[in-house]
C-alpha cells in the first residue's frame, strides 16, 4: 500500500515536559489507522501537530512522499486532512447549511448559496446512508447527528484523511455501529481514517493498523491481525493491567440513600431524570452505568441539593433531604467527588492546602478565636498529602499546576478522610492516569469496607464492573435495569445502555 501520509520523528515539548518524542508513523491509502493510548499519552498533541493547531519542535510531515508545511487548519484542509474534534466545531445557533458554508467557502461570492449547498448536503448524506436536514439548527440535533454533520463537512472539503478524535465517546452503541459503516464507506473510496481511541474493543473492531502511544512515545505499531486486546493493553500501560481490585465480600447494612420516583429538570428545562428510584445500603457500592447525558448529572445535583427536583423524594440516613440545602446534605456525612473536577471539585488558583481544608473553616477544631488555626490546618493538610500520596512540590503550590491525577487525589483525600457515611463518586477517575486510577479505586473500596454507602457514576464499563456490588443502568432518566455484580455481563449492560430493556412485570401492567 502506498503511504499517503508520513510523520517523521515528530517532537513536541511544553517546557520540560515532552508530549511527543520522535514519533514516526505512516498511513496508507484506504487504511484505518488507530492511535491508541491513555489520556495524556500524546495522541491529541500529535493530531494537533498534524492539523496545524500547534507547531512541532522537530520532525517532518510528508504527504504522498512530499514534505509539506502545515501551519494552520486551513493548510491541513488544503492537503485534504480534516479532523472531527471530540468537541464538535459546529456553531450551535446556526443551521447545518450555514455551518457548512462557513467551513467550506468553495465559492467566492458574499452571499450564501443556499440551493447548491443544500443539494450537495443531501447528495452526500444519501451516499453515506444518513439523513440530515440542511435547514435544521445544530443545537436541535442529537450528538450523533452533529457528528455526521462534521463528517459531511469533511467530505465537502474533499477530504482524503479523516481524523476522528475519540468519536464513540458520546455515541450510543447503535450510533457507533452506524459510524463504523460510514468508515467502511470511506475505505471503499480509498480514503484514510485516523481513529483515536482508548477503548480496546473498538480498536480491534475497526482498525487495520494500530500504533500505541505511551508517555509521548510510539511504543508499538502492529497490524490488527497480529495482535490482540491483552497485548495492546499491555503496551498501553507498560505493564500487564490488573484492573481488578481486591474486595472482601459485602455485608450490606441499613439503607443509607433512598431515592423514590425522583424527577429533575435539566438546565434546558426538559425532564432529565424521569421518576428514578434506587437505594444504596451501607457497605455496598452501587454503580450507575450509562452513556453520558442520560440524567446522571441532574440526579447527582438533586441528591446533593445543588438543584431542585420537581417531584419524588430523597432520603439520606432516614432524613428527608428532598430539595434541602447542600450544607445540610454535607452535615449528614455525605462526601461528593464531583464530575467536573476543575469547576466543582477544586478551587482553581488556590493553594493545595486551601483546597484540602475547604470544608474545615467552620469546624470548631480548626478555630482559634475568630481566626482559623492555620498551624493545625497545615498539619492536617500535610497528613492528607502523605496518606493519599498527592505529589506536589509544596502545600502552597497553586493546585491548577498539579496534574489531573494529583488534583483528583487531593479531592479524594478531602472527601474520604472525613469518614463519610455516603459517598457520591461521579466519574471519579476521569482524565486520570492509570496509576492514580488504581489508587482511587482502592480508596473507594476501602471506604465501602468501612461501612460507607457508595453511589458510583461512570461511563466506563470496566470501572463499573470492577468496583460495583450492584449495578443499575441509567437510560433517559430512569434506571432501566438493575442487577447484582455476579449477574452482570458486558453484553447485558450494553443492551440496557442502548435502551433495550426487558420490561418488569409492573411496567407491563402500566403499559
Amino acid at each position, binding site marked *: 500500500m502506498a503511504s499517503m501520509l508520513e510523520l517523521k520523528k515528530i517532537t513536541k515539548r511544553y517546557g520540560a515536559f515532552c508530549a511527543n518524542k520522535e514519533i514516526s508513523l505512516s498511513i496508507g491509502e484506504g487504511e484505518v489507522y488507530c492511535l491508541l493510548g491513555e489520556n495524556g499519552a500524546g495522541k491529541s498533541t500529535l493530531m494537533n501537530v498534524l492539523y496545524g*493547531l500547534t507547531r512541532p519542535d522537530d520532525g517532518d510531515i510528508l504527504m504522498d512522499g512530499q514534505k509539506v508545511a502545515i501551519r*494552520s*487548519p*486551513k493548510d491541513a*484542509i488544503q492537503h485534504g486532512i480534516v*479532523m472531527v*474534534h471530540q*468537541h*464538535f*466545531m*459546529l*456553531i*450551535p*445557533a*446556526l443551521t447545518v447549511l*450555514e*455551518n457548512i*458554508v*462557513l*467551513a467550506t*467557502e468553495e465559492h467566492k*461570492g*458574499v*452571499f*450564501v448559496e443556499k440551493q447548491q449547498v443544500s443539494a450537495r448536503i443531501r447528495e452526500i448524506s444519501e451516499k453515506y446512508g444518513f439523513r440530515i436536514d440542511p435547514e435544521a439548527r445544530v443545537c436541535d440535533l442529537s450528538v450523533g447527528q452533529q457528528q455526521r454533520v462534521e463528517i459531511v463537512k469533511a467530505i465537502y472539503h474533499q477530504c482524503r484523511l479523516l481524523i476522528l478524535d475519540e468519536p464513540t465517546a458520546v455515541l450510543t452503541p447503535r450510533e457507533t455501529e452506524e459510524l463504523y459503516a460510514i468508515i467502511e464507506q470511506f475505505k471503499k473510496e480509498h480514503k484514510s481514517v485516523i481513529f483515536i481511541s482508548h477503548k480496546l474493543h473498538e480498536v480491534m473492531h475497526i482498525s487495520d493498523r494500530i500504533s500505541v502511544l505511551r508517555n509521548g512515545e510510539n511504543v508499538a505499531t502492529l497490524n490488527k491481525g497480529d495482535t490482540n486486546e491483552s497485548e495492546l493493553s499491555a503496551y498501553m500501560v507498560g505493564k500487564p493491567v490488573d484492573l481488578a481490585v481486591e474486595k472482601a465480600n459485602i455485608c450490606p447494612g441499613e439503607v443509607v440513600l433512598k431515592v423514590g420516583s425522583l424527577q429533575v429538570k435539566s438546565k434546558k428545562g426538559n425532564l432529565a431524570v424521569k421518576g428514578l428510584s434506587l437505594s444504596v445500603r451501607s457497605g455496598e457500592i452501587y454503580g450507575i452505568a450509562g452513556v453520558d447525558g442520560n440524567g446522571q448529572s441532574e440526579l447527582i445535583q438533586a441528591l446533593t441539593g445543588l438543584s431542585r427536583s420537581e417531584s419524588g423524594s430523597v432520603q439520606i440516613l432516614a432524613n428527608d433531604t428532598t430539595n434541602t440545602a447542600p450544607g445540610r446534605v454535607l452535615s449528614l456525612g455525605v462526601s461528593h467527588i464531583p464530575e467536573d473536577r476543575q469547576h466543582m471539585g477544586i478551587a482553581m488558583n488556590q493553594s493545595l492546602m486551601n483546597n484540602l481544608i475547604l470544608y474545615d473553616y467552620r469546624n470548631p477544631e480548626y478555630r482559634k478565636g475568630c481566626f482559623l488555626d492555620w498551624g493545625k490546618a497545615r498539619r492536617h493538610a500535610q497528613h492528607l498529602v502523605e496518606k493519599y500520596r498527592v505529589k506536589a512540590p509544596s502545600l502552597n503550590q497553586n493546585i491548577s499546576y498539579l496534574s489531573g491525577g494529583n488534583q483528583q487525589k487531593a479531592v479524594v483525600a478531602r472527601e474520604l478522610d472525613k469518614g463519610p457515611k455516603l459517598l457520591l463518586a461521579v466519574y471519579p477517575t476521569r482524565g486520570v492516569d492509570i496509576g492514580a486510577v488504581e489508587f482511587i479505586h482502592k480508596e473507594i473500596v476501602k471506604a465501602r469496607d468501612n461501612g460507607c454507602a457508595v453511589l458510583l457514576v461512570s461511563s466506563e464499563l470496566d470501572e463499573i464492573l470492577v468496583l460495583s456490588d450492584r449495578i443499575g443502568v441509567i437510560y433517559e432518566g430512569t434506571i432501566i435495569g438493575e442487577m447484582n455484580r455476579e449477574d452482570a455481563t458486558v453484553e447485558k449492560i450494553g443492551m440496557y445502555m442502548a435502551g433495550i430493556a426487558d420490561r418488569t412485570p409492573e411496567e407491563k401492567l402500566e403499559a
Partner: protein
Amino acid sequence: MSVIESFLSVVFNSSTSILFAALGILLMHLSGVVNIGAEGMMLIGAFSGVVGSHLTSNVWLGGLFAMAVTGVVGLVYGYCTITYKANQVVVGIAFNILAQGLTTTLYRIVFGMNSSTMKVDAFSKLGAFSTPVYVGLGFVIVMTVFLNKTKPGLKVRGAGEYPQAIDSMGISVNFTRYASVVAGSMIIGFGGAYLSLGQLSFFTENMTDGRGYIALAAVIFGRYTALGTWLAVLVFGAGEALTYRLQALNSGVPSQMILMIPYVLSIVVVAFFGQKGSGPEALGIPFSKDGRQ
C-alpha cells in the same frame, strides 16, 4: 399635522441616533465583544461630527469625519479588548469617562472657552424627517441581510457563538472581531453625529445623556437581531417622545419624574428581557487558541 403624525415624527427623529448606536453595538456584541463604551463613542462621534462639519462646511462630510474618528477609537478599543484581552466592561467604562473629558476639553480648545454654542449646518430634511432617518431604516434591512444571508455575517455570528469552531475552519476569530468592532464603532459614531448634526446642529458637553446605554438596552430587548433592535429602539423613542408630550401638557407631575421615563423603561426592559442565554455564547470572552484566558 395631526397629533399622531407629529408624535411619530418626534419618535423617528429622536430615535435615529439610538438606532445607529444600537446597530453598531449589535454588530460588536454578535462578534463576541461587549461594548459598554457606546456612550463615549457616541459622544466622540457627536463632537467630531460638529468639528468635521465646521471644517468642511458640509454636513455629510462631517458625518464621515465622525465615522473615521470613531473608527480609530474602535481600533483602540479592539486593541485593548481583543489583542490585550482586557476586561471588556472595564475598558468600556474607561472609554466613557475618557470620552466625556476629552470632548469637553477639545470643544473648549477648538471653539473657545466662552462656549457660546457654535452652530453648524444640519442634515437637510426630506419630507417629514431628516435624511439620516431613512438611511437608518435602510440600514436595518442591510444589517438583517448581512447577518443572515452573507458569509461574512455568518462569520461574525460564529465568532460570537463558538470562536473555537471559527478558528478550526481556518478563519481568524480576532480579525473578524476587529472588523466588527471597527465597523460597529463607526456606525455608533454616525449615531452620535446625527445627534449633534441632525437634531440640534450644535455640540453641548455630555449631550448623549445616556443614549449609548439605552442603545445597549435596545440590543438586549431586541433579542440580538437587527429587526428586533429597531422595534426596541422605537419603543424607547416613543418613551422619549412621551416625555416631551407630558411636559407640554403641564400635568402637574414633576418634570424630573417625566424625564425619567426612557431610563426607567430601559431598566425594566433589561430586567425582564436580559436573562442570561439570550445573547451570543462567547460574549465578553476573549479568544485565545489554547482555550486559556
